[in-house]
């Protein structure tokens, strides 16, 4: 069966017009991500990794070329449509966890769910997901600042999974954790991928990249391997 890819990049170019002259961050990037893949994207600083991640996360649109997320072309979408796409189909995991300090753990995790349903949600779903990322029940009513880095990243993973996204985009997910905690998070990611979650991860760390099943290398705005 020929299943639709989760993400397709077709000859994507991204140019930033700057006063000193245009800067081409991505130059004709093409690749596809199939459902269930675990991809790491590696490359030196300034290679275009962040631009690629922003485009994959629908935070930006390409200067030319096409991007399809679950078959939907994002180039012509309005800000509202892109926002809905991010909310419903994409999960984000950041290096610095980026939890909301004013909300407790359950509220942080169910936040994207509330955005989707536009009403109060059953916290039980949040508890379920938090348990699936192996977070202790006693921590659910705490605020993010009361948790360790590893615990916060588990909460961030739970938040990214709450709306059952098609893709999980991870930006240096272990970059702010010690190696042992980082390995714990990567074990969790591997487990999520084994259960069918598609993961795309940007990292500098070759050891972390080994957890993925495919590595895409980028340099000077082009995919080199």
């Amino acid at each position: 069966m020929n299943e639709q890819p989760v993400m397709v990049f077709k000859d994507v170019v991204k140019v930033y017009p700057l006063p000193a002259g245009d800067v081409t961050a991505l130059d004709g990037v093409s690749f596809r991500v199939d459902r269930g893949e675990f991809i790491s994207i590696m490359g030196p600083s300034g290679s275009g990794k962040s631009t690629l991640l922003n485009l994959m996360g629908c935070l930006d649109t390409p200067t030319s070329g096409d991007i399809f997320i679950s078959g939907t072309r994002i180039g012509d979408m309005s800000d509202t449509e892109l926002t809905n796409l991010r909310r419903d189909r994409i999960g984000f995991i950041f290096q610095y966890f980026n939890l909301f300090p004013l909300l407790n753990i359950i509220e942080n995790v169910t936040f994207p769910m509330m955005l989707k349903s536009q009403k109060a949600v059953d916290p039980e779903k949040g508890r379920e997901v938090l348990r699936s990322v192996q977070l202790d029940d006693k921590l659910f009513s705490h605020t993010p600042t009361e948790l360790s880095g590893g615990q916060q990243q588990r909460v961030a993973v739970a938040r990214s999974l709450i709306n059952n996204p098609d893709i999980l985009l991870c930006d240096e997910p272990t970059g702010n954790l010690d190696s042992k905690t980082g390995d714990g998070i990567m074990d969790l990611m591997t487990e999520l991928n084994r259960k069918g979650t598609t993961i795309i991860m940007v990292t500098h760390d070759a050891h972390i990249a080994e957890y993925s099943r495919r590595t895409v290398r980028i340099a000077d705005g082009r995919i080199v391997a």
Partner: protein
Amino acid sequence: MIFWEIAKRNLRIHLLRSTLAMLGIVIGVVAIASMGILGNSLVLSVSDSLHTVGDSVIVSPYAGGGSGFGQGGGGGGSTSLKITDQQFQQIKRAVAPNIAIPVLQTADIMKLGVGSDTIVAPIYGINPDDVDKLLNLKAGSYSRSESGCLVGSKFADDHNVQVGSRISIGTDGDKGTLRVTGIIEERGISFDISTDSAIVVTQNWFDTTYNRNDYDTVVVKVNQGVDSAVVKTTIEKQMNKRDKVVSVMDSKATLATIFSAFGAVTTFVSAIGGISMIVAGVSIFNIMMMSVTERIKEIGIMRSIGTQKREVMSMFMYEAAILGIVGSVIGGVLSLIAGYAISALLLKTTKYLFVWSSATPIIEGVCFGIVISLACGIYPAWKAANLSPIEAMRHE
């Protein structure tokens, strides 16, 4: 709703900052509302003082004309301009069926009993047939006898005069002695005759004593349902055909002018209060901008995980609304207390405070506070909502 909750919690963790912003709104509302209450109480107070004026039209000789009037007149008259009997008859015919009452006025020295000091007081002469149409008594009865008189309530209080007391008019009582038959109700400020500190005698006694055959003023009591402005115009048309010989004052219109002036003063002082509200608004704007700047990264994260612009905007507008509503309501309550204190201090009474018209400035102040808060929250909220998620997430 989660954004309402976030707004509340953000204000709570910045309690001092939020309280100070709210304090600005409280002060603004108190300034506007208490000034409004004071103005309203002032209007009600003056209105109460003038209520006896009713609908009347006062005709007096035109001071600027200098011709066409009987000169001289009776002794003691303070002006040489008078209204002749012929002119009075013309006025009477012109305003019929409304009642025209001629009034004579002078001031003279008098003595209230043996051994008492000599005083000077105004004396009005009014026809006994008309006096009950103009004046109400609080004690005694109207006098038809030429030796009887009425006294104003303040006159009675100040000089311990009662019904039956005797007043000698003129030096050593050379103009005769009058017996007090009634005490006139307090009239306060009035446009026609001010009897509170005066005595009122019969027209005949006045004419005889002061050798008068003309009048100082004609008061036209306008019947119910008749427009006093029309009566005024009728008199002017009749009397001032060629030259201006009389001045005609419509008490109702004059009252309206007075109240309009009070309204303008109230608006002016409330506008000064409004300036403090504008300052409070700037404070809210400043605090909201600080809040946005502090939370740029948080806004970027929210946007990246699927929060719409309008939802980000609502979060900040909720903050502005909470500051505005809580501040304005507290200000509304405090303005009642401030209004009470100001009324008690300046007007010496608080009886005008708990009336519906006093609630209007409070409602206006509260609404203005809320509107200013919301208006000052719009730009920061809009700015937050329109941040680029990528730029916002990079913010440190």
